[in-house]
C-alpha cells in the first residue's frame, strides 16, 4: 500500500484528468448544451482544482449546491470501534440534525459501502431506515480499519423533485474521486 500522500494525490489527479478529458469530449459530441457530460466535466474540473488548492470539502459543497441542488449536507467520519463522529462539513444542518447523526453513528457506519451510492427514494427502498434520519442520499467516501467516511445529503432545494439519473452520475463520480482526494489532503 502506498502511504505517500503526494504520490496518492498525483495518482488521483491523473485519473481525474483523464476522466475529465473524456467527459469534455463526450459533451462536445452531445447535441444538448447542458448534458450530463458537461456537468461531469464541470464537477471533475472543480475537484481537480480542489486537489491542487487542498480545498476538497468546499468543492464538494459547491458541486452539490450547483449541480445537484442540495445545500444541506454533511461529511462525516466515523471512527471504528468508538463510533465517534467527526464532522468534516455540516452545511445547512441544524444542531438537532447533527445530534441525530451522532446518536445513529453505528447504523450509519454499517451502511457505508465504498462505491455504492445510495439514493433513498421509495422505489429503491430504505430497509435501513436512513430516511428517518433525514438523509436523502449517502455517498461513501472511504472505509478502512480506522474509520468510515461518507457525504450525507439531506433535503434538496424546493425546486427539485428528487434525484434523477444525472444526479446519480455526479454522485457516483464523487464517490470514486472525493474520498481519495480528501484523504490525501488530510494526510498531506
Amino acid at each position, binding site marked *: 500500500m502506498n502511504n505517500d500522500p503526494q504520490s496518492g494525490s498525483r495518482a488521483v489527479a491523473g485519473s481525474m484528468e483523464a476522466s475529465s478529458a473524456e467527459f469534455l469530449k463526450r459533451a462536445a459530441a452531445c*447535441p*444538448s448544451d447542458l448534458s*450530463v457530460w458537461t*456537468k461531469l*466535466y*464541470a464537477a471533475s474540473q472543480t475537484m481537480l482544482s480542489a486537489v491542487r488548492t487542498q480545498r476538497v470539502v468546499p468543492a464538494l459543497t459547491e*458541486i452539490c449546491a450547483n*449541480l445537484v441542488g442540495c445545500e444541506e449536507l454533511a461529511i462525516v467520519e466515523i471512527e471504528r470501534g468508538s463510533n465517534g463522529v467527526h464532522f468534516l462539513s455540516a452545511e445547512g444542518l441544524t444542531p438537532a440534525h447533527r445530534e441525530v447523526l451522532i446518536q445513529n453513528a453505528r447504523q450509519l457506519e454499517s451502511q457505508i459501502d465504498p462505491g455504492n451510492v445510495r439514493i433513498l427514494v421509495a422505489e429503491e427502498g430504505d430497509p435501513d431506515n436512513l430516511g428517518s434520519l433525514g438523509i436523502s442520499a449517502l455517498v461513501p467516501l472511504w472505509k478502512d480499519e480506522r474509520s468510515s467516511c461518507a457525504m450525507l445529503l439531506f433535503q434538496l*432545494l424546493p*425546486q427539485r423533485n428528487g434525484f434523477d439519473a444525472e444526479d446519480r452520475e455526479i454522485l457516483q463520480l464523487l464517490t470514486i474521486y472525493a474520498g481519495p482526494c480528501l484523504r490525501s489532503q488530510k494526510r498531506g
Partner: protein
Amino acid sequence: MKAKVLLVDDSSTALLLGETAFKRHTTYQVVTARDGEEGVQKALAELPDLILLDVVMPKMDGFAACREIRKHDGLRRVPIVMVTSRGEPANVQTGYQCGCNAYLTKPINAGELLEIVRLFLGPDEQESHASSPSSAGEDKVE
C-alpha cells in the same frame, strides 16, 4: 458578429458549466466575473448582450449588482437573467424589482437555459446542425 454573454457567479463549477455550454456555439463569446462588483465592472467594460447573474455572491450580491448595472445608460436594456438557488417567491420578486428580465433556479435545466438564450439572443445558427438526427441519442451515460 458574436453575441457576448457575461456570466457572473462566485462558483467556479457554475462558471465552468456555463462557459462549456456557451462555447459550443461559435456565435457566443463568453466573459466571466466572480462576484457582483466584478460583474458590474465587466458589464461596463464589455457591454454584453446578455448577463446571467447569480444572487448570493461576495462583495456585492446579484440584486445590488443588477440595480447598479441598470443605473448605466448603455446597460439599461441589456437582458439580465438571475440564476440562483434562491427560488423563493420573495426572492424572485426582489429580482424583478431590481430590474432583471428573467429568473432561473439552480441547478440549471438545459431546456430552460436554451429557451432563455433563444428568447433574448435569437436562435443560434449552429442549432440545426447540433440537433441533427446523426448526433441524437448520444446524451446517454453508459
